[in-house]
């Protein structure tokens, strides 16, 4: 800012710190709870400092298995969720890259019809078409499979539109230069279009990974077996209405573990993510 008098700086920081405290405290408290025994958690008040059962709780959850969800370990849940989130993110990116490529760079009959068909699916989110989709998955025998979890969520009008907009900004001369240089459609896609789209792909990957990671309704419907659950569904199943039945310490551990991978993805891809959002690098 223009004016950096100490009072202003102090107030600004105060507001920021307060904001962070409000946002971060519940997460901290979850962490605290995940390091205490069930008895400590059930006997209020909960201490404000971490307890001594960090290693025991985490190893029990990760490798031992949680009783209320049929003894499945959190490690399995993490693996399932990673497969699903990666599958959705990568699948969506591939499909939308290819469809945007076709729509922008090729002239074929009904091109605009296809574009509008894709566009219209924006208005039909998963929730609207959930029953027919479920029926199709049952008929194909895809309940309790990774395919069943991933495929219905892959088609993405949003990502297709995003790539379409980006491809439209690529100058026609570049396409022509590639043609004169003897690059066919696949070479052009692979050698020129993909490298130019990498920041967009990275940004989209982060968003889609988190989208996939936090899916609730679809995994809830399409998985019955406990060992095919995603972590979000399993968390829900771990919690019983009767407080005494719930292994709260393990629920807290699972919650903590569930937020680690999305945070890792954001932190590791932050540089790419920000660049993808702010500049087009041309």
């Amino acid at each position, binding site marked *: 800012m223009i004016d950096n008098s100490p009072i202003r700086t102090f107030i600004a920081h105060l507001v920021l710190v307060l904001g962070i405290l409000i946002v971060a405290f519940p997460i901290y408290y979850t962490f605290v709870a995940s390091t205490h025994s069930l008895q400590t958690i059930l006997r209020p008040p909960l201490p404000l400092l971490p307890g001594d059962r960090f290693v025991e709780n985490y190893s029990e959850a990760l490798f031992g298995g949680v009783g209320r969800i049929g003894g499945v370990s959190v490690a399995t849940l993490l693996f399932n969720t990673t497969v699903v989130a990666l599958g959705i993110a990568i699948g969506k990116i591939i499909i939308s890259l290819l469809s945007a490529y076709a729509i922008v760079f090729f002239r074929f009959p009904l091109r605009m019809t296809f574009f509008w068909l894709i566009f219209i699916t924006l208005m039909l989110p998963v929730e609207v078409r959930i029953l027919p989709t479920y029926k199709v998955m049952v008929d194909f025998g895809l309940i309790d499979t990774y395919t069943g979890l991933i495929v219905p969520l892959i088609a993405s009008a949003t990502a297709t539109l995003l790539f379409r907009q980006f491809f439209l900004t690529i100058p026609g001369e570049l396409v022509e230069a590639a*043609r004169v240089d003897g690059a066919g459609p696949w070479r052009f896609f692979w050698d020129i279009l993909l490298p130019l789209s990498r920041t967009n792909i990275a940004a989209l990957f982060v968003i889609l990974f988190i989208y996939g990671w936090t899916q609730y309704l679809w995994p809830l419907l399409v998985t019955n077996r406990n060992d095919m659950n995603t972590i979000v569904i399993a968390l829900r199943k771990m919690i019983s209405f009767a407080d005494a039945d719930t292994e709260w310490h393990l629920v807290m551990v699972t919650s903590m573990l569930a937020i680690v991978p999305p945070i890792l993805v954001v932190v590791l891809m932050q540089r790419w993510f920000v660049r993808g959002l702010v500049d087009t690098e041309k």
Partner: protein
Amino acid sequence: MATVDLKDVKKVYPGGVEAVKGVSIAIPDKELCVLVGPSGCGKSTLLRMIAGLETISAGTCSIDGKVVNAIGPTERDIAMVFQNYALYPHMKVYDNMAYGLRNRGMPKDEIDKRVRTTAETLELAHLLERRPRELSGGQRQRVAMGRAIVRSPKVFLFDEPLSNLDAKLRGQMRVEIKSLQRKLGVTSVYVTHDQLEAMTLADVLVVMNAGLVEQLGAPLDIYEKPASTFVASFIGAPPMNLLPLRSGQLEGAVSLPAIPANAATIGFRPEDCEVGADGAASEGGLRLMARVLGVEPVGAESFLYCEAAGGRIVVRVPGRTAVAVGDQLPVLARREKVHFFGSDGKRV
């Protein structure tokens, strides 16, 4: 290396717009042909049809005696330099130049040799590891040239390659392109809207207007004998003075040369005018009184903007001038420097 032959080439866009209305040009081997004309005259479309980037609606285009209408740009063995260079932004200069060669399956060591030799010629050797965005406009231009040269194609195609450079660099690159083209002896087609570039570069100059060839020939022949009022006003800067004739007479002229019966316009170039000369020089020439409206000294010469014979004319005088706004001047153009055009705009 190769000749380029266009026979009655037409381009009709879907929707019925006719961009090129039947153009025939024969470009001899090793010569540089410049297509010049105002924007929208079809010169770029014509170039893109030679490149294979646009389909040819009618007529034939042959390169090296072979009709290439149905052949894609890759197989035509041409190289093109684009207006905005069209360098691949994510590739280093080296890869930009090597890309076309790699796609043709040339062995690695051969590619390396060619790229380095070409870079040497264009003084790009120290920039091979840079990316296009780290280069200046002039350097990018050179890389674009290098990408074309390294392929040693049958034909070079230039699409207004200098229009993004500043005036000084443009002049420099113009000379360089010309000498490079001479040295390599590659048949070239060059599109520009800049008449100075057209005049200085061309072996064969083609002036185009509204999808048709207005005049085709050696640059100086076109300058000296423009085939129409359009060419007369397009080639030369400032353009030729054109004054309308009314029933074979020019209003306000002191003396007139013999006027052909069907002439409707009289023309003379600003640089062919003499101011204040009289006597023998004016014999059989055009002489008229002009009132000075403006004076533009540019150093080596000055331009006088005048009103004469019911129209506006420009007169060039060498060096400084003492003429002031509002002066009345006798202006003279010798008989052999006066042009006549018919009512259809064609030379008579």
